[in-house]
């Protein structure tokens, strides 16, 4: 149990009383890359947004490093919020700041470090994602893949133990997407970060996923959980096997 970094128990998620996901329970272990997958519209991003407290849970509980994200006190929520970093589909970098300033922002807000220390830490985070030479560029001046990497650097600024990435490969070419996968694996190995990744990119899922859950739009819940390769080869559900074998679906 000590290995668990995220615990989701009996979660019901939705908007304005409309249930989109129900009976969602799973645990993410320390140092693993956990994938949330499923077809378009199955509620992957909805689950992520409810997990990180952007929307109120309709029922259930989410604990990150033991802290409740909702349902506890303000201090518990703040402790939970400090323990993870998030990146969004578009990168969501602040357009009026350089990449370096984007990464510096959380350090300025949450630490008392002197400015040269903050700057060095931000430079080191950018170096980790291979963007130090572009530290002074604005988000509009860099490519989509670089934006995603910069967003990861910003999410890592406060050294969270968990990173949640929403569709990191969306809109990227296969080569850039593979580079991003290698970066995720490197950060996991060097810094022991646990990743929760929302994606439906099969190449990424097989390349980096230790375990995964598959959401289903029809039943509005988890229909499969396990290692992606094992699920592809041995799942009793045809829906799952078909998702992992698009060639079979077309044939």
């Amino acid at each position, binding site marked *: 149990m000590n290995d668990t970094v995220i615990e989701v128990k009996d979660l019901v998620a939705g908007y304005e009383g409309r249930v989109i996901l129900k009976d969602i329970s799973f645990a993410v272990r320390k140092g693993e890359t956990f994938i949330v997958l499923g077809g378009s519209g199955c509620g992957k991003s909805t689950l992520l947004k409810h997990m990180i407290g952007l929307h109120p849970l309709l029922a259930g509980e989410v604990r990150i490093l033991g802290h409740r994200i909702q349902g506890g006190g303000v201090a518990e929520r703040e402790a939970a919020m400090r323990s993870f970093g998030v990146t969004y589909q578009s990168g969501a970098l602040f357009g009026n700041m350089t990449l370096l300033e984007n990464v510096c922002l959380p350090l300025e807000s949450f630490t008392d470090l002197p400015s*040269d*220390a903050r700057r060095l830490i931000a430079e080191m985070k950018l170096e980790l994602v291979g963007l130090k030479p572009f530290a002074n560029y604005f988000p509009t001046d860099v490519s989509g893949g670089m934006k995603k990497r910069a967003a990861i650097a910003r999410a890592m600024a*406060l050294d969270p133990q968990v990173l949640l990435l929403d569709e990191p490969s969306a809109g990227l070419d296969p080569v850039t997407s593979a580079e991003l996968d290698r970066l995720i694996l490197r950060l996991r190995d060097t810094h022991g970060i646990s990743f929760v990744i929302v994606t439906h990119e099969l190449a990424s899922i097989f390349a980096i996923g230790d375990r995964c859950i598959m959401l289903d739009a029809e039943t509005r819940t988890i229909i499969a959980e396990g290692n992606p390769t094992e699920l592809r080869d041995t799942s009793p559900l045809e829906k799952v096997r078909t998702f992992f074998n698009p060639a079979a679906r077309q044939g």
Partner: protein
Amino acid sequence: MTLNLPEICTVDSVTPLWKQRMPEVGKLKAGEVLILDADSVKRYDGSAEALIIEVHRCAAAQGFSVEYRDATSVIAKTLKIFNPAVFSDHTAYDLPPRNTHTVVQVGEAAVRIWRDIVDVLAFLGEVVTSGLSFLVRPGRLRLRDTMLCIERAGMDALPIVALIGFLIGLILAFLSGSSMRQFGVEVYVADLISIGLFREMGALITAIILAGRTGSAFAAELGTMKVNEEIDALTTLSLPPVLFLALPRVLAAAFVLPFLSIFAVFMGLFGGFVVLWMMDIPAITYWQHVFNAITVNNVLIGLTKALTFGLLVGLSGCSHGLHAKRSADAVGQAATASVVGSLVLITIFDGIFSVLLFILDI
């Protein structure tokens, strides 16, 4: 000198080290030795890694040597991931210094205003060209969008126009009434308000409201469309953005302002009536003076001004929106610039009208 890294070497414990011990490290000279002791470290984060890199950076710059006590391999792991030499150049990423000299700033502001005017004029050319193509093929104008713009710019603005118009009439009547009462001619306040509102104030006030309310909305809307690449999508579909997005808005602004202006004038006249009624001037006398003072020329001058100001507000809003850069910040700047641009243009054209009317003796 020895620098001990604490057992829990995270940002809370590193911050005091950075503030108190690093200045001492910065004073070490060539030949001296710094012992970096990480033996007791059990947990560390990015701030500890940064401290280790900073020590090495100082050592390289100042020439002192560093000895490790690294039973937990914290230093070795950090140096394996990060090369201190990469972070040696502090100045490489400095932002270009902003020129804060007043003369330069004034010059830059003048150039900006000049470019704004040129842009709006160039945009006027594009709109006229699009307008001509619309005359050839009227079906190309999106009538539904135009009607929607008219509703938002016109109908939805009625409450604020009513309030401001009423208050302006009230204030004008109070200011002039209190002075004129001393001479017993307060009844002529009705003439003053009537001429002032029809000829000048009605169009001016509503144009300012339209610039703040609608012109900025045009700029923000089109700016956001540019950020979302919707403008690019229109262009690649061979649909000119000026015809499809700007022309309906410019036409709507030019169309609604004369009506809003007349509405503001009547609300202002009503405001004046309330004041003169309080000064015991009979209603019949007030309205008689008001309608006697109205001339066809005054009404036409007011309407012409309103039409022109509406056109300028629409042009400024759409021009700044379509020329916005691709960021959230730029959208805000475009909205601000559209309002400022509209006000500058309205003032300039109002001045031109005044000179022309004086020369023509109208």
